[in-house]
């Protein structure tokens, strides 16, 4: 009997070896195929044909079951063949799911050969489209899709590895590569932002990962994808950046690149679902960075945003900007602030504890610039929340701490803010806006100032206050990511800010007020604190600072990231701030501490 010549001369066994990587001497034999079709006739025929190709076949007549198969057997399949028209789920939807969750090549097939259906297959990412009735010859070569995809993945990873710098090169790559570009940008941005704390770590990690060429392909199981989605939802789809998602997911062995490419797909998937376009996280990042610096100077948010958005302004750069702007005195001041440490340390410790609880208490302590803004923003938010409750309390606390900190400092008036380069402020308006807000708080600040002064004497009180402040801020900061900007400027907050931003408060730091600020606003603030000229000035400055900060805070994107940053950096910031004579401490960082210093001077 002539059974027909078999095109391939393989072993007689119809079920080839079982291997997980699908690559072997016998390749493409043993290719693990999942075929999905609701037509039993076609399904059976395909199964037989594929078996005759010496592929390992699993057949399935429902898309949901197929997805379950795929999820339960991570790395259990090399390729999926699916019919387009199925009763329980559209074949293209299955295609999307597989692409998102498992990243396997998918071949679509249908008796429908109309152009638009085939085009739909292309746009949804099918690697091939077969017209029914499917012939053996068509199935014989499906292994090429598996090889091609693996090859592309490796190439992408290589490129990604070789080029955080190689963005350009990456962009020249295929669409697969594109997914790395944004993540790389984000990575750059984030690096800049977190430079002090984690940048090296992150980069190191990335590099380490990069150095392991040809990372194994990550199979996005349903659990993994769920973790991913949870992380993304937690972060907010607009603010979900691969690094953060990766951290939240906390999956060992998962790389940022994996997450980045998956995020890309997910965004496309969501976009298809809702028509919304994915947000550019890079921008958000930029804002964050701005926030950090915003507090420092007029650079607040806006300037930084622009810079950050372009990804050109790493934190470092911002800091250096601050430095450049800063006068030499500033650094001196900062040192002074540190020398101040003792009194501060006390509450610093306390605060640190509080900080541990979570939020950017640091702001109060003159957190490094980058963080400061964020923390400041957080504080703003916190302040907002707290306004009602403890404005006076906050004020008093704020002041004492500031005062305490400052008492020992001698006339190091915070050029910190000065240095910050108000000239950079191009956002007079926003500054102005925040400024006016600050003005309101100025009043409260003023009030509490009186109180604060009383408490100046006791360091303990200060500590208490500080703690209190921190608590307040802490609580406020929690979950307040989104409330940047105006809201944040509450009296309590302002005062706190004022108090804690001695630098801002420094009389001489009228400089703090960005040139763009309208004099009216400044006057307003001054009027509020009129009775205490020094303080008033301080308030002005702090108001300015606040406004600056607020401005930064206003960046919605920042909110979230700030929080994260705050969490991460807060403690560190605090430590950094109070580490005496740390050369590394930038003047910018010290701003807040600086403020305290100034405040002390004024009050004392």
């Amino acid at each position: 009997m002539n059974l027909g010549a078999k095109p391939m001369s393989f072993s007689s066994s119809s079920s080839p070896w079982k291997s997980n990587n699908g690559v072997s001497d016998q390749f493409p034999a043993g290719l693990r195929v999942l075929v999905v079709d609701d037509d039993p006739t076609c399904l059976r025929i395909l199964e037989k044909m594929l078996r005759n190709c010496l592929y390992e076949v699993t057949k399935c007549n429902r898309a949901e079951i197929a997805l379950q198969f795929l999820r339960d057997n991570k790395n259990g399949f090399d390729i999926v063949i699916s019919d387009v028209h199925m009763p329980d789920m559209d074949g293209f939807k299955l295609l999307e799911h597989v692409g998102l969750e498992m990243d396997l090549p998918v071949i679509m097939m249908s008796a429908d050969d109309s152009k638009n259906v085939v085009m739909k297959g292309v746009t949804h990412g099918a690697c091939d489209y077969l017209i029914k009735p499917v012939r053996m010859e068509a199935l014989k070569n499906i292994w090429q899709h598996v090889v091609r995809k693996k090859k592309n993945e490796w190439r992408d990873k290589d490129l990604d590895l070789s080029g955080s710098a190689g963005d350009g090169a990456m962009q020249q790559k295929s669409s697969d590569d594109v997914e790395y570009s944004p993540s790389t940008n984000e990575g750059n941005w984030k690096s800049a932002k977190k430079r002090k704390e984690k940048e090296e770590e992150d980069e190191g990690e990335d590099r380490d990962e990069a150095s392991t060429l040809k990372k194994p392909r990550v199979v996005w199981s349903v659990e993994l994808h769920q973790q991913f989605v949870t992380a993304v939802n937690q972060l907010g789809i607009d603010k979900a950046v691969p690094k953060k998602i990766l951290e939240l997911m906390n999956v060992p062995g998962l790389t940022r690149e994996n997450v980045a490419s998956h995020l890309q797909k997910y965004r496309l998937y969501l976009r298809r679902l809702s028509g919304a376009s994915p947000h550019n996280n890079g921008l958000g990042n930029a804002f964050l960075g701005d926030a950090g610096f915003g507090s420092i100077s007029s650079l607040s948010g806006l300037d930084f945003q622009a810079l950050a958005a372009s990804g050109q302004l790493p934190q470092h750069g911002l800091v250096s900007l601050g430095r450049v702007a800063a006068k030499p005195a500033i650094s001196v001041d900062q040192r002074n602030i540190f020398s101040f440490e003792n009194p501060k340390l006390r509450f610093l410790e306390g605060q640190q504890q509080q900080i541990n609880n979570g939020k950017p208490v640091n702001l109060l302590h003159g957190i490094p610039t980058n963080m400061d803004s964020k923390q400041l923003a957080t504080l703003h938010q916190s302040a907002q929340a707290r306004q009602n409750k403890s404005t006076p309390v906050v004020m008093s606390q704020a002041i004492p701490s500031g005062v305490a900190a400052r008492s020992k400092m001698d006339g190091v008036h915070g050029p910190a803010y000065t240095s910050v380069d108000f000239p950079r402020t191009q956002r007079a308006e926003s500054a102005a806006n925040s400024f006016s807000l600050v003005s309101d708080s100025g009043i409260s600040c003023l009030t509490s100032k009186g109180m604060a002064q009383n408490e100046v004497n006791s360091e303990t009180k200060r500590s208490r206050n500080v703690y209190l402040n921190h608590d307040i801020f802490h609580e406020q900061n929690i979950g307040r990511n989104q409330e940047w900007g105006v809201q944040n400027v509450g009296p309590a907050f302002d005062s706190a800010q004022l108090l804690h931003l001695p630098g801002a408060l420094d009389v001489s730091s009228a400089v703090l007020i960005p040139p763009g600020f309208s004099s009216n606003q400044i006057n307003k603030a001054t009027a509020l604190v009129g009775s205490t000229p020094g303080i008033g000035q301080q308030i002005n400055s702090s108001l300015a600072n606040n406004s600056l900060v607020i401005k930064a805070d206003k960046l919605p994107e920042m909110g979230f990231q700030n929080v994260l940053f705050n969490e991460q950096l807060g403690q560190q910031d605090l430590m950094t701030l109070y580490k005496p004579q740390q050369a590394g401490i930038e003047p910018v960082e010290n701003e807040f501490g600086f403020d305290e210093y100034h405040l002390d001077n004024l009050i004392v």
Partner: protein
Amino acid sequence: MEVEQLQRSFLEYIAALFREGFLDGQFSQLQLLQDESNPDFVVEVVSLFFEDSERLLNDLTKALDQQNVDFKRIDAHVHQLKGSSSSIGAHRVKNACITFRNFCDERNVEACLRCLQEVKQEYLLAKTKLEALFRLEQQIVAAGGAIPILDEFS
């Protein structure tokens, strides 16, 4: 002897089916897929086709009998029937389905009813002929012979 006769009858019969358009090259593909590990592959697949088609034809009859004819649903059914019939090489059934789909697009109930009739007819014809073919095959196997394949169609 008997076996050879049976085999000859078989070959003539199947050749006629091809010639008359009841079967096409796809059927030969099925025959090629049959081997020692799946000796009844063709019968198995064609049986699946019969089951599925009868279900689809029933659904189609019901759907066209509705007050408000759901053309989308009908189109989906016909599309599937088209797919399965083409997969086994039931050529005339497939063609009838294509015609049916065209009228479905026009949302012409009368024409669709006619088409349904046409499809049913073709289906029954195909079924009868294939069953006859399988009976011949069984006889050949029972007589100890091997089922011949028409090479020119493979």
